[in-house]
């Protein structure tokens, strides 16, 4: 059995997506693959078991899912943090080892998704480097690089991981930085002995959320457009300007959420004139029936929320920072990008995966 640890030096680098794509490639090569996430930060309940949302999603999607209780032995709930700080017994290294035994039983490969950055989980003994010591295997780094500074974090991680580091995938690279990453950063890392296995571009679809997820996050009342709650939202914009400026501004982004006051009929109409997936109306002020009629006609949901605009924006910032793969088509898009742009066989070789003849 080969263990692959997918780690990152920074949160929101897109590890989960890479795990999904990697598992898919392994399955296609006829291997029995397991998925393990020792430390999860997004609590949810599945069959009465507290687990991590993404972990449950990926495990459920495997041909032969592991028992839910074993997939993510440590879930960082508020209680977990309090218990840990108080010195009360909490799941730790022993539980992780035991759960890993369950998940890895009779598998060819287990893909282990490390905590969000290199530090997370250290308090429980399960940071990425601790996991490597605990479970063995090889490490794939998923990084969001920038042309503005040297790849110091990757070099630092390499010094910690040593020979276990198989290489790096540069993920969520924006259009403008791509040439610099490809022509400068990749060769530079190679000169330091670090192999890059692909430069994957930032894809608005992957960082999108659904209207429903926004409503779940903000709470609130859906006033219209109930049929469009599964539509994707790629970004959000705040409408506090006059109508003319709003139009110019709103045209720059497609499939967006627009956050504005319920009394700002002009901004709402400007948003409806452009590509908008949902109107979030703050301050619990109901919109005019005429505007609502127009939104309804266009099939754009209007959601009335209690919080003020600033509060709503803070929530949305968090929501958009974390990419989820649950949305329709997202996992497929990630797999497609991966198979097109990553030399998979070379990567699997570096990760120590023996492919069936």
């Amino acid at each position, binding site marked *: 059995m080969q263990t692959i640890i997918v780690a990152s030096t920074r949160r929101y680098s897109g590890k989960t997506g890479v795990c999904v794509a990697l598992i898919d490639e392994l399955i296609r090569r006829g291997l029995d693959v397991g998925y393990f996430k020792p430390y999860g930060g997004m609590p949810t309940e599945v069959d009465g078991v507290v687990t991590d949302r993404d972990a449950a999603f990926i495990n459920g999607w495997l041909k032969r899912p592991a028992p839910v209780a074993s997939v993510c032995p440590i879930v960082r709930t508020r209680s977990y943090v309090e218990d840990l700080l108080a010195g009360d017994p909490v799941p730790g290294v022993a539980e992780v080892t035991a759960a890993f035994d369950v998940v890895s039983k009779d598998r060819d490969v287990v893909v282990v998704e490390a905590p969000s950055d290199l530090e997370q989980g250290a308090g429980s003994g399960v940071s990425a480097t601790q996991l490597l010591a605990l479970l063995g295997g090889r490490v794939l780094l998923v990084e969001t690089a920038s*042309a*503005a500074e040297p790849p110091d974090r990757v070099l630092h991680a390499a010094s910690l991981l040593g020979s276990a580091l198989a290489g790096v995938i540069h993920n969520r690279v*924006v*259009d*403008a*930085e791509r*040439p*610099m990453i490809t*022509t*400068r950063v990749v060769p530079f890392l190679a000169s330091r002995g670090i192999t890059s296995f692909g430069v994957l571009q930032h894809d*608005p679809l992957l960082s999108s959320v659904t209207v429903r997820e926004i409503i779940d996050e903000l709470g609130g009342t859906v006033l*219209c457009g109930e049929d469009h709650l599964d539509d994707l939202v790629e970004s959000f914009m705040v409408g506090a300007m*006059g*109508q*003319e400026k709003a*139009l*110019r501004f709103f*045209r*720059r*982004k*497609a*499939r*967006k959420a627009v956050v504005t006051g319920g*009394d*700002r*009929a*002009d901004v*709402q*109409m*400007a948003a409806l*004139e*452009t*590509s908008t997936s949902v109107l979030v109306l703050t301050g619990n002020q109901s919109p*005019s*029936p*005429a*505007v*609502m*009629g*127009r939104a*309804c*006609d266009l099939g754009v949901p209007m959601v009335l929320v209690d919080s003020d605009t600033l509060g709503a924006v803070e929530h949305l910032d968090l929501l958009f920072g974390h990419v989820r793969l649950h949305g329709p088509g997202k996992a497929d898009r990630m797999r497609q990008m991966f198979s097109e742009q990553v030399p998979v066989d070379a990567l699997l070789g570096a990760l120590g995966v023996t492919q069936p003849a």
Partner: protein
Amino acid sequence: MGLDSLLSPRSIAVVGAGREPGGVGRSVFDSLLSARFPGPVWPVNPRADEVAGHPCFADIASLPGVPDLVVIAVPARVVPPVIEACGAAGVPSAIVLSAGFKEAGAAGVALERAIVKEASEHGLRLLGPNCLGLIVPGHHLNASFAGVMPSEGSIAVITQSGALGTAILDWARSRGGLSGFVSLGNRADLSESDFVDAFNADPATRVIAGYLESIVDGPRFVRTARECVRTTPIVLLKAGASEAGARAVSSHTGSLAGSDAAYEAAFAAAGVLRARDTEELFGMSEAFAHQPVPCGTGLAIVTNAGGPAVMATDACARAGVALASLMPETVDALRAVLPPASALYNPVDLLGDAGPEMYADAVRIVSRDPGVHSVLVLLTPQAPTLPMETANAVLAAAEASKITTLACFMGEIAVDEARRVLTRGGVPAFRYPERAIDALAGMERYRTLSARPAVEPPAIDADRATVTVILKEAREAHRPFVLEEHASDIARAYGIPVPRGAVAADRAAALAAAHDIGYPVALKIASPDILHKSDIGGIILAIEDDATLLRAWDTVLDRAHRRMPDAAIWGAMVQQMVPPGREVIVGIERDPTFGPLVMFGLGGIYVELLKDVTFRLAPLDHAEALRMIESIHAAGLLRGMRGAKPADVDAVADVLVRVSLLVMDFPEIVELDINPLVVADRGLGAVAADIRIGIGGS
């Protein structure tokens, strides 16, 4: 004309006419009868055998004939089956008075869509829903629940606000009457353009007056109105000009008020006169309704009061109305009939004791002067003044003179009745001289507008294929803005001069570009996220050598990273230095109603601080582009002043025309800014030193 069955029906059915007086349907039925509509009027109501002594019918199918017009006044939810029945029976037109449609929210939207679909399947034209109805006094048609019937006149009124409509009708009763009145309501089918067309074809209509908060189909309206104003003037009050007003429009009608600049540009293109307020709307409409359009400039003022004459003269200067210089023969003739102390030059002051005959004589004499094309009669009620007699004398003189005559009788109690007599008699009478002058200015503007030749957009050589490829590539890469160097390529493809340049991703590329172009060069940060490059210190000019370029490279990129850490940065643009000149700005706005507008202004503080910019609908021809340049306050700076040579305005006009054609050809361009366009002295051209092109999110 397509709306005959609506505007001059032969038979009418009223669905929802109640047994008892009161209620909307019954009110319409009663109005139709009391207006003595000549054809049959059939009440339709399944719960009544007769209405006001007329046999009532259970439904459309039971009527003795197919009505030309069906007026519907039943609750919104039962309107769809009525429309269906009208369609099935072959009714050609209907007015839906009922509210509870689009303006009322989601359920209403669905209802409105349903009736439009049903109607269009049967070729049934709809007015409304949610409207006050329609009145055509000349056809004894009062299909409204306004409760009043104006007399026959020559003003056709189109209003988006039914409530304002009732005020207009009341006003019309005290003044000259109307040729038509349409309350547009939600404009689910018929809209302002249809009625502009219809009233233009109506011989009884001399002017179309309207109140609008938005326009349904901008390009169609501009086309229709432009055609109309060749023969019939249009005066519109467009509300929602302020930010707060725009919000109120959106909230009220569920539509965008649209940018005021766009309406100004569209009305200018269409030749529509814009009234600033209700009083101006009424005043201008009355002037057109009762008086001929002046066939030249040159106003003579006849007054019994010096102060108001001075005020009128000031108003003339503000509104661009020229005062006539009276011929010596005219002055002599005036001297012969006026008291010795009178002022004989324009304004002609008859003095405080002027009687009716003196007014009549003076009006007759100045009207004969070949340099006079309009007359304003001013009066204040002084002790010897006889307002009513003077009004009648002025009416007689104006009738004889055949030239444009307006009156301003200032005051209230002493002159109110005289004003009414004047207006009813065909000489519109105003309370204040400024209002009279504004109306006259509108008429003079109309004279020019109605004579404008049709404009064809000029043909230019443009490499459309290159632009298509660039825009496609940007869209596929999900870029809201095209890359800097591609923006230059687009400009070049349309013949807009741009300096040579290239975006460099690193120092080596920057040096290579500089060597290729030759020093001196400019270095500008290249980022789709940084719109105001100079604000963040992202531009360094006049770089003379490699060492300076490398220092500039670090400076520009560091500043960008520091000031805008989240911006995506492509590198920096190395550009040929543009020789200094006058800096102007050319841009576009894409209006949701009217499409692309071209913007022009002087650079720097003139745009940012003084808002000295002007907009025109695209496409532009060269002459219109030159007028556009002339129309900004600071145009004098381009003409050359205090020793400066004139700038190459022809080159600027050429860029304006080309930009206008570019954005017409490529609707996907939603933003375009040339800032600055550096203009050299006359004959030496203009260069787009910086150009940004946005295609929006995709």
